[in-house]
């Protein structure tokens, strides 16, 4: 269950192209699992920005009832995130967390590959620790456009058995995309489950390669969200249910993590004509 808290910014540190924020507040770390996200009000009291911004939870630590800590990794993209990364230590932020459905963890100790694009690596160390605690082998591939857009590589390298980096510009690691190096890695690592977080085109490629190589994939999608709590229906994408029916489901409450083979990647941004409730003729 999500709570809405006034959190205090304990630390705001630049890391490469990102900012690592540490927030302290009451109760918002309780029940957090890797893959959950937080939604933060931006712009202060008198702002034209009416919507919250969503961020994967990097780490969450429950201490006392009053003193839990949530960490985020923020890329200063537009006005909302620019405002956020400019907040001074001590600033009070309005945070709703934890939100969404986290990564599903395997019951058995299997080989897991964690694939991240850009700030998509934010939840990966946390996820890796949980998997390792369950006896899983953890391997990782981190990709980004350039070196400064990689996050948490040192920590993750430590946790992973095999660890690879790709960059679009070749500034570090293999020049190319994560999906380019996935097949080899998955064969070597005998990967059973792939966990992925990053931009939509990357997730689509990851889901495809995973399926080709017979692995299950868990992808954390990133759709525009107005509410983040399930009341507005903006954040939908076509996902195939257990019954084989495609529905436009809310990524904020039914996701952001979906099985990669269930997301109709090619149809994201459309309503497939076979989707539940799709316009029959003439449209809505």
């Amino acid at each position: 269950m999500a709570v809405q808290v006034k959190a205090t910014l304990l630390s705001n540190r630049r890391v490469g192209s990102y900012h690592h924020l540490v927030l302290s507040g009451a109760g918002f770390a309780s029940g957090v699992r890797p893959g959950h996200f937080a939604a933060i009000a931006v712009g202060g009291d008198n702002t034209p920005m009416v919507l919250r911004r969503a961020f994967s939870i990097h780490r969450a630590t429950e201490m006392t009832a009053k003193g839990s800590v949530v960490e985020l990794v923020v890329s200063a993209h537009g006005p909302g995130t620019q405002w956020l990364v400019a907040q001074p230590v001590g600033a009070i932020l309005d945070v709703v967390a934890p939100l969404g459905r986290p990564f599903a963890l395997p019951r058995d100790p299997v080989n897991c590959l964690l694939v991240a694009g850009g700030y998509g690596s934010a939840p990966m160390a946390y996820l890796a620790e949980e998997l390792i605690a369950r006896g899983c082998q953890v391997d990782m591939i981190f990709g980004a456009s350039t070196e400064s857009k990689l996050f948490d590589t040192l920590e993750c390298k430590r946790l992973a058995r095999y660890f690879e980096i790709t960059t679009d510009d070749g500034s570090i690691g293999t020049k190319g995309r994560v999906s380019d190096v996935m097949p080899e890695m998955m064969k070597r690592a005998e990967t059973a489950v792939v966990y992925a977080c990053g931009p939509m085109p990357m997730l689509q490629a990851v889901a495809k390669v995973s399926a080709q190589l017979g692995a299950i994939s868990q992808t954390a999608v990133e759709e525009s969200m107005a509410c983040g709590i399930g009341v507005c229906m903006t954040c939908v994408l076509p996902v195939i249910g257990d019954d084989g029916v495609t529905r436009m489901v809310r990524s904020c409450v039914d996701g952001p993590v979906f099985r990669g083979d269930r997301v109709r990647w090619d149809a994201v941004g459309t309503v497939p004509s076979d989707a539940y409730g799709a316009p029959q003729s003439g449209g809505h």
Partner: protein
Amino acid sequence: MTVSMSTSLGNLQLRGPVLTASGCAAAGKELDQFFDITEIGGIVTKSIMLEPRSGRPTPRMAETPSGMLNSIGLQGPGVDSFVANDLAWLEQRGATTIVSIAGNNTEEFSRVAARVRDHSAVKGIEVNISCPNVSNRGLVFACQPESAADVVAAVRRTVPSSMPVIAKLSPDVTDIVAIAHAVRDAGADGVSLINTVLGMVLDPQTLRPKLGGKTGGLSGPAIRPIAIRCVYQIRAAMPDFPILGMGGIRSGLDALEFIAAGANAVSIGTAIFGDPSAPMRITRELEEELQKRGFSSVKEACGIAHRVER
């Protein structure tokens, strides 16, 4: 001195003047995490249609200066699932429930109304004849007095006369007073003012419409002056017609502005996205604003902007 916060919309008694706006609170369940939904005036549920409906393609929203556009397109599970799941939950929870209904034609409105009219959870029906997120502007029934009246009359015939029927109007018309008169004459017990304003933004990268549905509905504080004007116009023209006011309410003072302009109660929409506790917070803030000004009740403040001297 405590302020009496009860109010009414026609013969619908409300414990408080602050409700949720249709489409911004689903059926209340998610908000119940953040505050006790039985403590506010009521939940106006997302407009429900006869059949399940997938809505429009994504992206479905764009933030705009002091507002947002949405092009949800009335996605929903269809009225049967709504009754079985959402209404059942609302009833068990004991929330004051107003069901918003929509349809592709007059008959569909009637059929949806018929499915919900006997449910004991339902305290009123809001008839959404003003959703801009439809493929054809002809489907915005609230754009013409005749089509608005047709739909309202059909719903009115379908539900018992004790069940309040509120028509939700669009500001995208030349003469909103004429539409309000038409729906009153067709049997509406009040009006909801306003639905979103038709708008569009382009994506700065592609220079094409940003929303999957191209156009969308503008909501939030940006449109508040338009909404206040509509409420004031209708209250001036129809001194006793119940009004549920909405459009950009973010604080208790904003809510008071609507009430002073003539709203009997208000709905909170977009503000919920920025603050999921908004309906409860605004209820408290409104009480303070009323108290500060020496009002003993919401009713006393209702329409005060029209009185010549205070």
